[in-house]
């Protein structure tokens, strides 16, 4: 295994789905059920059984809209405010209307959600305004249940192939070029429609630990989706709205205030005081978190040690088996006992991820990108605050619409020269006798991301970042060296990470205002609704570098009252007379 072999195979399918984590499997299932004759391929760089953000499960649905608890109108309003107004509401509203049906389907798959004594979904309030969090105390079963459905539906699964470039022709999608991660053999897949569900760009900033893979996101989500969409000419929206999360320091996993919050846990400063009213992740919340750290009242903690033993035991049980189970090992190693100790938190490295923010490939309410026949869903598509249920639901939209799209089209012709050029690009590091290994290219890129792009954002620093990135890119293109096909995969990831770093700098420089709290805090600029109440769309320019345009925010379908607009800007707990 891992030796570099020479070979190219071509296969055809109706719908190619790239990425088998969360959105991808649902897209595949929906497409196949709607048209059982369609040839649907689900392709993954890892193994669909355990790939993606929910590899080990998920502890809850963070954004469920369940009748009796919330309405699509309320949810659309909440997300519009949480995302600072820059929202095409149609996509959010459609999600809000249809996600309940998806929950019921997941329930039928055998995925268990918390129910009360009457058998009703037991929804909790974590957001600032509404009630949307549905705990999954047995959420470790989610990936297995999904995989069973894929086998039952006879979806064609291709594991351990990494897509590296999309193919286009006749003004629409034509397929994708893929490389086997264990043999370096090429696979050209012709497809009438392609759904991209490759997850976040999670290996963009460098974690404070310095360990390349100690990221918040599943470290296999290294941003290829963003990179491929860019090179294919698709538009990417609001990339400057970075993902930055409040995490357990060093472990770099979620502190899970969404799990602990409804049971009485909360985010506190070093004095054990609550300083934010609401633990729901937003740029505004992260700004308060940052201010507390900088203001001398840090570190910031997750506080559970005031809770009753039974409550702590339940929180511990959920957090130590679901989503990131090594969390238990981590706390044991540091002798941290939730009953006695507060859990130290910090601010994560930056990334692109619409799952928690809004940075993603631009899509409409049917998950269509700006390229005909190309869809995107999940963490890499720009529907804001998507989370796992958003990935499932928008993945469903993509699969359903793709089936309609392929009815009237045949394979688009593409230029074989594109395949040859991609082979040359991919294999270049295998043709050298020595040089720079991919991990050093990646480390340097990501360290510069931290040094120059981590908010608060400063113009001069971001311009320096662009110069440094250009130098590292030159080194990457002329000197990167790999010894086997596994390292070749890492070299391709390094290249995607470099593309994302370039896009992060360019997008952040373009929007000359501050918005989304810490996510796009540009110290030289105030918020500027007059000029910047719009999406920014990044595309690949004719010079091969990022080009920018403004795109108007669609007219709201749910109006936001003047006094509601600032709900997320007023998060700081105002101290009471009693507290003083």
């Amino acid at each position, binding site marked *: 295994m891992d030796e570099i072999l020479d070979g190219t195979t071509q296969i055809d399918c109706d719908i190619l789905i790239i990425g088998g984590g969360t959105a991808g499997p649902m897209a595949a299932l929906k497409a196949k059920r709607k048209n059982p004759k369609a040839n649907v391929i689900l392709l993954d760089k890892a*193994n669909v059984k355990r790939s993606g953000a929910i590899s080990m499960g998920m502890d809850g649905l963070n954004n469920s809209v369940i009748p009796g608890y919330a309405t699509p109108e309320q949810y659309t309003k909440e997300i519009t405010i949480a995302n600072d107004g820059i929202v095409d509401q149609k996509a959010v509203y459609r999600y809000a209307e249809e996600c309940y049906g998806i929950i019921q389907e997941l329930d039928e798959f055998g995925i268990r959600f918390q129910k009360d004594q009457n058998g009703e979904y037991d929804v909790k309030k974590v957001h600032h305004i509404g009630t949307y969090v549905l705990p999954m105390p047995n959420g470790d079963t989610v990936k297995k249940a999904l995989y069973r459905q894929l086998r039952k539906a006879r979806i064609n699964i291709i594991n351990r192939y990494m897509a590296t470039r999309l193919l286009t022709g006749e003004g629409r999608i034509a397929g994708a070029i893929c490389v086997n991660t264990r043999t370096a053999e090429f696979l050209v897949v012709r497809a009438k429609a392609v759904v991209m569900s490759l997850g976040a760009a999670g290996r963009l900033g460098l974690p404070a630990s310095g*360990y*390349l893979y100690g990221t918040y996101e599943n*470290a296999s989500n290294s941003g290829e989706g963003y990179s491929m969409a860019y090179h294919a000419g698709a538009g990417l929206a609001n990339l400057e709205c970075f993902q930055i999360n409040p995490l357990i320091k060093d472990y*770099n996993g979620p502190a899970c205030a969404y799990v602990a919050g409804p049971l009485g846990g909360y985010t506190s400063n070093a004095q054990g005081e609550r300083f934010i009213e609401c633990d729901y992740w937003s740029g505004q919340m992260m700004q308060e978190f940052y201010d507390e750290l900088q203001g001398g009242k840090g570190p910031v903690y997750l506080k559970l040690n005031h809770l009753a033993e039974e409550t702590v035991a339940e929180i511990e049980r959920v957090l130590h088996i679901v989503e990131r189970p*090594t969390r238990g*090992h*981590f706390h044991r190693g540091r002798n941290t006992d939730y009953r006695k100790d507060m859990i130290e938190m910090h601010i994560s490295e930056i990334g692109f991820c619409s799952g928690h923010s809004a940075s993603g490939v631009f899509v409409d309410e049917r998950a269509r990108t700006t390229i005909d026949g190309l869809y995107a869903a999940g963490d890499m598509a720009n529907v804001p605050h998507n989370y796992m249920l958003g990935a499932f639901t928008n993945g469903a939209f993509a699969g359903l619409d793709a089936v309609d799209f392929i009815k009237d089209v045949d394979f688009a012709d593409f230029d074989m020269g594109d395949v040859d050029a991609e082979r040359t690009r991919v294999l270049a590091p295998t043709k050298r006798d020595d040089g720079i290994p991919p991990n050093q290219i990646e480390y340097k890129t990501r360290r510069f991301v931290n040094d120059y792009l981590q908010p608060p954002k400063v113009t001069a620093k971001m311009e320096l970042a662009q110069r440094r990135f250009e130098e590292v890119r030159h080194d990457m293109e002329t000197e990167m060296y790999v010894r086997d096909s596994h390292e070749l995969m890492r070299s391709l990831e390094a290249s995607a990470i470099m593309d994302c770093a370039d896009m992060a700098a360019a997008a952040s420089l373009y929007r000359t205002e501050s918005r989304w709290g810490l996510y796009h805090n540009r110290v030289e600029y105030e918020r500027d609704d007059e000029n910047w109440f719009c999406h920014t769309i990044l595309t690949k320019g004719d010079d091969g570098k990022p080009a920018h345009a403004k795109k108007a925010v669609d007219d709201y379908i749910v109006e936001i009252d003047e006094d509601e607009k600032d709900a997320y800007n007023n998060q700081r707990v105002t101290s009471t007379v009693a507290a003083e």
Partner: protein
Amino acid sequence: MPLAQTSTIVPVVIDDALCIADKGCTVCVDVCPLDVLRIVEGPDGSPVTAHMKYDECWYCMPCEADCPTGAVTVNLPFLLK
């Protein structure tokens, strides 16, 4: 330009006494999202045991959870533990 051989302690540990790679099992290698596990082969090319070949671990645990004999332990990488 020679490449250095820098040593590193890896987080995933296999109990060779429990590992059944010699019977053809490749579960941990199959499920790892980062593809960092491999099977050690004996002099005749036959499988012997699993091991962590690349220090690129997300400490996510499918290898430990899915191992049929409980041979795999995921520790935290030293840099962050």
